[in-house]
């Protein structure tokens, strides 16, 4: 996977989540991007059950994520901890570990939307939902030919400015630790995890009054 930046775009003033996504989509299509199917990234939260003996440490949160770009894989990560890339059977293992790790089903969060290709860029505009409610918008931009984060950040930023304008994000924190090492899908999942955590903490997007 090429170097990827995942960020959040705030809902436009006076508009709904869906309208803001459409606004971004129109800007992308005006640039010349082509629609290329859909994508989905989801995240489930597990926490250590009360049965685990604690040496004074608080229960840890483990996130198990899936990305439609890698349908046979499963990503498991801890905040500020290692990110494990495993095959789809990892979900079966989590069922077996029911007694030790409890699935906080209410915390399941996902982002789904359309994939756009523009030359060497792959852009995914997603609506982030938690249960039945839409909570925000995620934008994932990938520059496919490059795998060294610091080599193409400026190019990525310039491209994002062309359709995100002032909402262009700063350099993702995962890039900081990369230096010259290769970018990997796990880094994208870490960015999604951080985005989902941020959105979970935000106030629910107020439902626009029906006109």
């Amino acid at each position, binding site marked *: 996977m090429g170097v990827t930046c995942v960020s959040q775009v705030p809902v436009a003033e006076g508009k709904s989540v869906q309208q803001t996504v459409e606004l971004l989509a129109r800007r992308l299509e005006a640039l010349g991007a082509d629609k290329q199917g859909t994508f989905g990234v989801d995240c489930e939260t597990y926490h*250590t*059950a009360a*049965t*685990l*003996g604690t040496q004074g440490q608080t229960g*840890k949160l*483990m996130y198990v994520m899936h990305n439609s770009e890698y349908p046979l894989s499963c990503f*498991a990560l*801890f905040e500020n*901890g*290692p*990110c*494990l*890339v*495993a*095959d*789809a*059977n*990892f*979900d*079966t*293992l989590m*069922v*077996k*570990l*029911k*007694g*030790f*790790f409890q699935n906080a089903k209410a915390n399941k969060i996902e982002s789904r939307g359309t994939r756009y290709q523009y030359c060497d860029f792959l852009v995914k505009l997603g609506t982030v939902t938690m249960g039945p409610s839409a909570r925000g918008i995620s934008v994932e931009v990938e520059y496919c030919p490059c795998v060294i984060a610091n080599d193409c950040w400026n190019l990525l930023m310039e491209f994002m400015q062309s359709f995100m304008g002032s909402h262009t994000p700063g350099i993702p924190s995962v890039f900081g630790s990369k230096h010259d090492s290769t970018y990997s899908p*796990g880094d994208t999942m870490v960015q999604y995890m951080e985005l989902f955590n941020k959105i979970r903490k935000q106030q629910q997007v107020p439902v626009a009054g029906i006109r």
Partner: protein
Amino acid sequence: MEAPPVTMMPVTGGTINMMEYLLQGSVLDQSLESLLHRLRGLCDNMEPETFLDHEMVFLLKGQQASPFVLRARRSMDKSGMPWHLRYLGQPEIGDKNRHALVRNCVDIATSDNLTDFLVEMGFRMDHEFVAKGHVFRKGIMKIMVYKIFRILMPGNTESIEPLSLSYLVELNVVAPAGQDIVSDDMRNFAEQLKPLVHLEKIDPKRLM
């Protein structure tokens, strides 16, 4: 707490519960060559395959009496292979006519930061060993003849010593739950290896 018996669990998300059928035996070092010779004749025609693996067994202790066991295995001689994480359930208490040991198994290929991740989850390594030997295949059956080595210094796989003067022989099949005919095929194959090696159903609980 062990996971509930497989037969009671619903099929989740389209995955089928896989079962491992196992028969084990052993041969002394001096009989190895004749066994390998017979296996080469009986098994599928393929390049002779050897392996050198390092396996670590991790335990997660909860308030329950029996800890949760996971096995992490990596290849020491083949580069680029994923790590292999394996969960094995308790042997199913089936009828005595079942010829092989049957237990639920979940096999997962993972990236190479598996041990760090397991420790982060709360697992602690209980023991580790190195396995070196040969692997053969016949249809869906896998036959392994290997020697177990004790690791003298934790984490150092260079200094190892054999655990015994024999080789462990395992015949196993991983198949979806409910296919008991598999154990009949295994028993028939095991018959052909007699008297070089006697493969039997060995209940791990009886050894403890």
